[in-house]
C-alpha cells in the first residue's frame, strides 16, 4: 500500500532570518507561502508534532537576543514563547572540579535541533543545543529541563571536550533519535563528539562510534570525538542507522553489530562522500538520499565541481545513483546544511526536498528523479522539515 499524506503537506523552512511555511496542494506542485515568522531571528529548526499535526515548534535566537523556542497550534497565525526555554544548570555553591559538574556553568547559545518524543509520550519533545546539551519537554514545548543523565554526568566533559566549539556555530548536539519500539532507547550525535546510545531513557549513555573515522585528529578511530553531521534511524527498520559524517557516509545494523560500515566508499571517487544531510526513505530501509559536497583540501563544502546532485542508494549503500535532472548543470556552488533536507511519506513517488545556503528551495515529486525550484531569494536556509498539517 502506498502511504500518502493524510493531511495538508507543508514544508517548514528555518532560515537565518526567520521561519517560512510552504503549504502544498494535493499534487505537491503548488506551494503557498506563509510567514516569515520572527523575521530577523535565526531559526535552526522548525518542526510539526506528527502526533497531532498541529503543534509547531520553532527555535529562535537573535543576533542579539538569547535563544528561545516558540510554539503555535494554528499554522503560525499566533505564537507563544516557551515559559522555560532550555538552559544549563548553575554551578553548585560547594566548589567541585569542573569535570564533576558536567555542563553546569555553561549557557545555551543556540537551540539547534528539535525532535518529537515517542508516539506514546504525548507532548514529549527533545531539543539539542549548542554548547552540546540534551533537553526534554513533557508539555509540548512550553517548559524544558536538562536530561541530567547526559548534561550533568562527569563524562560530559570528556565527550564534549569541555564544551569546546566543534562547528562554525559552536559545538552542536543533534540527530536525537527515538526507537519507535521503545521510548527508552535513544540515540544522539554531537558535532563534534560522536554518536551515543541510551537504553534507559537518557539516564546512562555509551559511545557508539566503532568503525567511524576521525581524520582530523591523531587517533583516527577513537572511542568518541568523531564528527557526525547527521544521523538517522530508519523508520522502516529501527535497528538500521545511517550517518553522514565529516569523514564519510556510514551504516550500522544495530541488532547485528556495534561497528559502522563506511558505505560512502562506494560513491564515485570524483564526488566523494562528504556532506551534511542523510534522508531515509519512508518504507525502504535500503534507500537513503545524500547531498555530496566538496570535502577536499580546504573543505569548501559546495557541490563537487559546482555541479550539484543528490545521490541515492537503493541497496543499503552498495551502489549510488546520481540524481541531478532539473538542477543547475554548472557553476552552482550549493551548500545544504544537515537539517535542510527531508522526505515525505509517499512510498512510491517520494517527495524529497532540500534548501540551500543561497536561499533556494528545491523539491522532487518522484524520489529525486527530477527536481523543481520551489522558491528562491530566501535567506540562508538552515532547516527544511516535511509536515503533515491537520
Amino acid at each position, binding site marked *: 500500500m502506498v502511504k500518502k499524506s493524510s493531511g495538508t503537506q507543508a514544508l517548514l523552512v528555518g532560515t537565518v532570518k526567520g521561519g517560512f511555511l510552504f503549504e502544498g496542494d494535493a499534487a505537491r506542485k503548488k506551494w503557498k507561502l506563509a510567514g516569515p515568522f520572527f523575521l530577523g531571528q535565526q531559526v535552526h529548526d522548525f518542526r510539526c508534532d506528527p502526533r497531532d499535526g498541529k503543534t509547531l515548534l520553532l527555535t529562535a535566537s*537573535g*543576533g*542579539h*537576543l538569547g535563544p*528561545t523556542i516558540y510554539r503555535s497550534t494554528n499554522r503560525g497565525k499566533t505564537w507563544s514563547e516557551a515559559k522555560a526555554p532550555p538552559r*544549563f*544548570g*548553575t554551578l553548585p555553591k560547594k566548589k567541585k572540579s569542573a569535570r564533576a559538574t558536567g555542563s553546569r556553568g555553561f*549557557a545555551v547559545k543556540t537551540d539547534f535541533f528539535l525532535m518529537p518524543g515517542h508516539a506514546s509520550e504525548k507532548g514529549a519533545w527533545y531539543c539539542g543545543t549548542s554548547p552540546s546539551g540534551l533537553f526534554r519537554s513533557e508539555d509540548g514545548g512550553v517548559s524544558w529541563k536538562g536530561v541530567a543523565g547526559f548534561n550533568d554526568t562527569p563524562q560530559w566533559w570528556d565527550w564534549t571536550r569541555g564544551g569546546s566549539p566543534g562547528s562554525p556555530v559552536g559545538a552542536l548536539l543533534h540527530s536525537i533519535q527515538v526507537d519507535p519500539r521503545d521510548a527508552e532507547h535513544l540515540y544522539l550525535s554531537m558535532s563534534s563528539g560522536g554518536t551515543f546510545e541510551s537504553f534507559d531513557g537518557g539516564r546512562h549513555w555509551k559511545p557508539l562510534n566503532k568503525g567511524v573515522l576521525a581524520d582530523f585528529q591523531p587517533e583516527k578511530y577513537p572511542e568518541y570525538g568523531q564528527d557526525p553531521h547527521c544521523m538517522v534511524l530508519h523508520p522502516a527498520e529501527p535497528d538500521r542507522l545511517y550517518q553522514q559524517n565529516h569523514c564519510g557516509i556510514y551504516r550500522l545494523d544495530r541488532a547485528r553489530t556495534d561497528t559502522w560500515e563506511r558505505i560512502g566508499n562506494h560513491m564515485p571517487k570524483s564526488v566523494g562522500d562528504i556532506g551534511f544531510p542523510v534522508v531515509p526513505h519512508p518504507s525502504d530501509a535500503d534507500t537513503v538520499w545524500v547531498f555530496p559536497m566538496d570535502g577536499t583540501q580546504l573543505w569548501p563544502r559546495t557541490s563537487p565541481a559546482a555541479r550539484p546532485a543528490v545521490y541515492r542508494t537503493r541497496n543499503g549503500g552498495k551502489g549510488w545513483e546520481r540524481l541531478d535532472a532539473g538542477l543547475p548543470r554548472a557553476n552552482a556552488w550549493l551548500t545544504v546544511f544537515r537539517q535542510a533536507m527531508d522526505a515525505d511519506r509517499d512510498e512510491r513517488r517520494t517527495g524529497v526536498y532540500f534548501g540551500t545556503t543561497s536561499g533556494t528551495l528545491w523539491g522532487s515529486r518522484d524520489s529525486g528523479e527530477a527536481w523543481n525550484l520551489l522558491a528562491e531569494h530566501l535567506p540562508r536556509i538552515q532547516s527544511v522539515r516535511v509536515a503533515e498539517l491537520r
Partner: protein
Amino acid sequence: MIVHVGSVLYEYTGGRAEVEVPLGRGATVGKVLDALEQRCPGLRFRVIDEQGRIRQHMRLYVGNESVRDLERAVGARDELHVLGALSGG
C-alpha cells in the same frame, strides 16, 4: 524608574521604548531587570543568560555609563538602557 529598551525587545514591551518599573530599597541593575521581567515576561532570559551574564551582543547603560555588573547600584534618578549592540549582519 524608567527603563529604555531597544527595538530588539519590543516583542516583550508591546512595542514600547520605555517601561516604568518600581524601584525598591537597595536597587541594583539586576533587581531592575527582575522588576522588568515582571512587567515583560520572557525578556530577561533574552538579555541575561542562565549564569547571570549579560549576553554578548546586548548592552546595558545607566545613563551614559556602560554597565557589565548586575550588582551596580541604581537610584531613583537613574535611567537604565537595555540595547542591542552595534553588531551582526
